């Protein structure tokens, strides 16, 4: 069964042609790889291809189908696109969701919220300031926007990827 897989911005077709123990034959787009793949520790893979030794580390991202993937020098965002994901991606496109949310990419503390619900914000203005590890990060809007909902208050602790402000 063939899947679609998204690596950063590249979308590829991927399919396991055959498998015997840890020996895989995998087709990705038109490239066929004969591989020896073992998981040496939770999320840590050792892959041998043509005698070359690759180490790949996975951390599950927002759900069980998306990963942060580290190779020797690079980090990739990988997502397996199944029917569900496609559906969600389409819905997201239709509803314009997500682009309208200001989220904190890291855990931190909300230091300041500079607007209130209903306010109009000019492009480039800072909406919210989050502090983590003695550093403050400002979250701005790129275009003129209106504050629809504010989901946090000053002093709140937020997690990574937690939505803070909904704009329209």
């Amino acid at each position, binding site marked *: 069964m063939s*899947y679609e*897989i998204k*690596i*950063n911005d*590249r979308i*590829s077709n*991927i399919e*396991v042609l055959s498998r015997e123990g840890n020996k*895989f034959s*995998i087709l*990705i787009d038109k*490239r066929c*790889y004969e*591989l020896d*793949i073992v*998981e040496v*520790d*939770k*999320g*840590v*893979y050792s*892959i041998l*291809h043509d005698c070359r030794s*690759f*180490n*790949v*580390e*996975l*951390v599950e991202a927002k759900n*069980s*189908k998306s*990963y*942060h*993937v*580290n*190779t*020797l*020098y*690079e*980090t*990739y965002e*990988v997502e*397996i696109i199944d029917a569900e994901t496609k559906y969600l991606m389409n819905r997201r496109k239709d509803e314009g969701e997500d682009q309208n949310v200001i989220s904190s*990419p*890291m*855990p*931190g*503390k909300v230091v300041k919220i500079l607007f209130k619900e209903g306010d109009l914000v000019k492009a480039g203005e800072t909406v919210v300031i989050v*502090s*983590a*590890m*003695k*550093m403050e*990060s400002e979250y701005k809007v790129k275009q003129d926007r209106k504050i629809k909902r504010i989901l946090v208050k000053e002093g709140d*602790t937020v997690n*990574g990827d937690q939505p803070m402000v909904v704009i329209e």
Partner: protein
Amino acid sequence: MIKKVLVANRGEIAVRVMRSCRELGIESVAVYSEVDRKSMHVRYADDAVCIGPAPSSESYLRKDKIIEAAKLTGADAIHPGYGFLSENADFARMCEKEGIIFIGPSPYAIDTMGDKITARKTMIAAGVPVVPGTTEPIHDIKTAIDVIMKIGLPVMIKASAGGGGKGMRLVKNEEDIISAISGAKSEAKAAFGDDAVYIEKYISSPHHIEFQILGDKHGNIVHLFERECSVQRRHQKVVEETPSPIMTQEVRMKMGADAVAAARAVNYYGAGTIEFIVDDNLNYYFLEMNTRLQVEHPITERVVGVDLVKQQINVANGLPLAFKQEDLKQTGHAIEMRIYAEDPDNNFMPSPGVIKHIREPLGLGVRHDGYVYKGYEIPMYYDPMISKLIVWAETRDEAIARMKRALFAYKITGIKTSIPYLHRILEVPDFIKGRYNTHFIEENQQYLKKQNTSTERSIDMAAIAAFVDYITKLESLQTEPNTKQQLGNNWKDFGRKRSALRF
């Protein structure tokens, strides 16, 4: 003699201090904030006391609670580490009053060196060179010229009343002196209604070089040579090395003697650091003194072969230094790099979070001073430094190669770190040549930006690993759960089984 040391700090430095205590047969006490309950220093210590909520002002900076913890656990000494209360003279005084040994210099030395103006005056009196400049405003051109000729070019002329670059002139050539003074004066007059100016030596390519010193309570002071700390980002040191690649033995001896003189001027005891600003011709000027252990102390430990924390404890115990200046020498080359929980490819955004997996670099010539472990959540309240990688080798070139090897083997997942950025620093031609100053990072942006090293194959391998992980999960999900294996035979027999949970 000290029997039990409370370490008024957290993170790698707390663990590092406790290690030396353990080797000396001294018990250690950890203090911790509420979010640090699982921190390594709590696990490593013999005793541990909670001193308050996460914000430093409510815990690690609370002098009263720390003293209380020392009394509760019977600690007879306090080591402040670096940061937090390490350069707080009041805290040192409080310890003294409570009969607890403060492992650090006298409150007098902290106070004197802590105030920039007092420190500068003390250094001038001690004959230690400071950045030449006027201390009084100058109004007439003739005095200005005299002063400039005395200081020597280049100089910076600054409006006394000034700010924001107004009335500032950099003078590099003699023929520009008069026009520069006139220009600065008239600009200052126009902007601030006051044409007085200051003149200061301008150091165009400054190097930050510091000297480690150690003094005892019997008046003995030695230096342990220099550390080159010019690789800085936003005034934060990123790489430190010793010996400095620009140093000569002659200047080293002179600077070392001046560092000792600087320390002697405040009757210094304990470990301290004299920071100098140095130009390309190795003219050097006192910048400030850090009256505590530095983050980068391990490179000195490695090249000189001395455990600085043990020395601090010995001095606090009133022992004389075990060595004289002539007993000390530098062997080989050491480099330290600081690993931060931050995303170097996204404006160095801090990256707190849970360590999912960690593999620390090991082997010949590698020291790794850290405190995080698999499953540990790096809190968002403190400094993002998670560890320090220190390498030693016979030569600087070999040390650079070794550092690359160590960075290659250092794996952390779950958070972003500065490791890829540090890799890139080691590839910058000016760094490799050892020709750099404090402008290094800003002048080498083109080398330090994220390079695209992706090949089609490496992208494919990333995709394949994720895909295989996914389908393996899917398969195990579609198989009937093998509860028996997970929970042991016995659960099932007793009909307790509700479902199979991960624990």
